[in-house]
């Protein structure tokens, strides 16, 4: 465990060990605080046909007559065995619902994630390269506007424009009505995917644009960029080459850290577009008093977000070697080696640019 990623993994695993139980306790507390009678939520409108004895019997069968902490440990014991309970609104085990709905969410979120990264970092680089001129102002204004516009409103506007007024794209569901998953063509699926992905990815570009722009401007104003400029590198090549490598390294981290936001956006987007994913199930669970499903989804998203953060840290350290240095390490020997590093960097730059180094 001497390598940098080994130590990173250890640190992160230790974090998970205390974070996950704490989160589980919090989520369970929140769900059991709800002023909703689970029996009533389960029985629904037929509640008047049930007598108090029957109600008590159901409560006893579900263990609702026991105190909260006992119920929590029961839930935990089942959770460890992979049993998340039964969903009331889908009338199926929670795990089945999750597994069934995960692929659709993955397709939606994966496409949006990639699209947002490509578009966001591209616009960020463009804005930084044209710093202060009209493309920069336009892009910055755009980033600002989308960061304050409600995501679900953007979705509604898109439906209004592309699905109603222009009638180019479908506004609902993952497939045309009457078509099953097996007989559907991938092209049909893709057509239904366009509007939700557009909505979600637009929402994700805002912070990314600003981050990439800031990092790239910081680089372009710095000494290394000045050095390369003096060697005759053009501004365009500077921004696209070493500049964007400098900026995009941390952009990956920022983008991966925003997975939680992406899921939040997908809850709203899936509700609007009737996309059969986890987000839609979240809303159904929350409005239908389906506590087991809500708990299951929350746990899954927490794990996904934690994994995303771990991946972000590993990627960041892989891209940027400076992050691999642990703070406890001594910095003195490194300082001593600095003049040599400088010389080698100069030689390297010079050879890449085919320029004779001075002295």
């Amino acid at each position: 465990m001497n390598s940098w990623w080994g130590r990173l993994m250890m640190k992160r695993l230790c974090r998970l060990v205390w974070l996950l139980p704490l989160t589980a306790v919090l989520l369970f507390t929140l769900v059991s605080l709800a002023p909703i009678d689970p029996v009533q939520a389960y029985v629904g409108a037929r509640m008047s046909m049930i007598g108090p004895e029957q109600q008590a019997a159901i409560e006893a069968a579900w263990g609702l007559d026991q105190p909260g902490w006992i119920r929590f440990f029961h839930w935990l014991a089942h959770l460890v065995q992979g049993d998340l309970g039964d969903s009331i609104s889908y009338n199926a085990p929670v795990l089945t619902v999750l597994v069934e709905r995960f692929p659709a969410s993955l397709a939606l979120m994966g496409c949006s994630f990639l699209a947002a990264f490509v578009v966001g970092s591209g616009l960020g680089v463009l804005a930084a390269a044209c710093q202060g001129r009209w493309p920069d102002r336009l892009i910055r204004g755009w980033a600002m506007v989308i960061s304050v516009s409600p995501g679900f409103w953007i979705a509604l506007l898109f439906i209004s424009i592309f699905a109603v007024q222009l009638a180019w794209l479908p506004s609902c569901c993952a497939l045309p009505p009457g078509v099953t998953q097996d007989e559907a063509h991938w092209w049909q699926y893709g057509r239904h995917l366009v509007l939700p992905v557009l909505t979600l990815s637009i929402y994700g570009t805002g912070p990314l644009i600003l981050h990439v722009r800031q990092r790239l401007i910081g680089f372009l104003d710095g000494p290394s960029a000045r050095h390369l400029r003096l060697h005759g590198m053009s501004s365009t090549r500077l921004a696209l080459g070493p500049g964007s490598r400098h900026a995009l390294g941390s952009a990956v981290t920022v983008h991966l850290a925003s997975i939680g936001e992406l899921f939040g956006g997908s809850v709203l987007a899936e509700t609007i577009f009737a996309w059969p994913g986890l987000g839609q199930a979240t809303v159904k669970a929350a409005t239908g008093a389906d506590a087991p499903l809500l708990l299951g989804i929350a746990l899954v998203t927490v794990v996904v977000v934690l994994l995303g953060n771990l991946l972000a840290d590993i990627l960041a350290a892989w891209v940027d070697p400076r992050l691999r240095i642990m703070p406890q390490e001594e910095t003195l020997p490194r300082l001593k080696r600095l003049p040599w590093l400088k010389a080698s960097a100069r030689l390297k730059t010079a050879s890449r640019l085919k320029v004779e180094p001075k002295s």
Partner: protein
Amino acid sequence: MKRVMVSIVSIVTRSDDTGKSYRLALFMAIVVTLMIWGGGALPDTMMAVNPAQRSLAPSWQHWLGTDLLGRDMASRTLAGLAQSLKVGLLAAALSTLLAMVMGMMAALNRSLDRLVSSLTDMMLGMPHFVLLIMVAYAFGGGTVGVTWAVALTHWPRLARLLRHEAKTLVKSDYVQVSRSLGRSNLWLARHHLMPHLMPQWIAGFVVIFPHAILHEAGLSFIGLGIEPHLPSIGVMLANSLNAMLAGFWWVVLAPGLGLMLVAFGFERLGERLRRQALPPDRGSSGVSPGQVA
């Protein structure tokens, strides 16, 4: 009174960057006051159901058109914004208050510091919107639920920042002297920490506020927020889906645009205040530039 007016005028008419911030702040304060005051006082007749005037396009009589039930969209949007702003103000105030208490507790007591840090880490590690849904669910939805949901989920970043500030304050000589003179933690927090944390607190409030109203609208949209019979932006947009599919685009445009403009004004103001009062956030990921909310 006259002196107050004179000082306000002199501050607002300053030609430098600070004057710009003050002008923007004054403008937003006036907008919010007018909206809450005016939107709440709109006569019911303006929003009454009127089947004779269903789904009218924007005209001089109905600036933003009417919805499927013939209600005037302009007054409904105003009333909805008033509702959103009220909830947002309350939630943001509660949230920043919580952040302040948490930050000061963490700075003054080591074991509480542990607790606050791990709580902050946990809250930041969870997907924000899921947490919002869970808290709203725990309170059974409704206006009360959405207010608590927004208040209880927006404090961590500001708390982390205030904790950092308060910790450097506690290390300073005068606080140490006060402490060795036997002052209680409560006294220290009240007399030494709070006055110094005020600028950050106000900036944090303004930064959190637009997020608060946007999240409130999102929760109301999925049906966990403000009750459907009250006018609110989220509920209006949720109900507008059918009208929009029938081609009545104005039903969607007005409420969202209103919400966006208010949020935009506060975001600009927050941006300025953040530059002036808040240091860049060096959180665990070390990458988010000065994000509070």
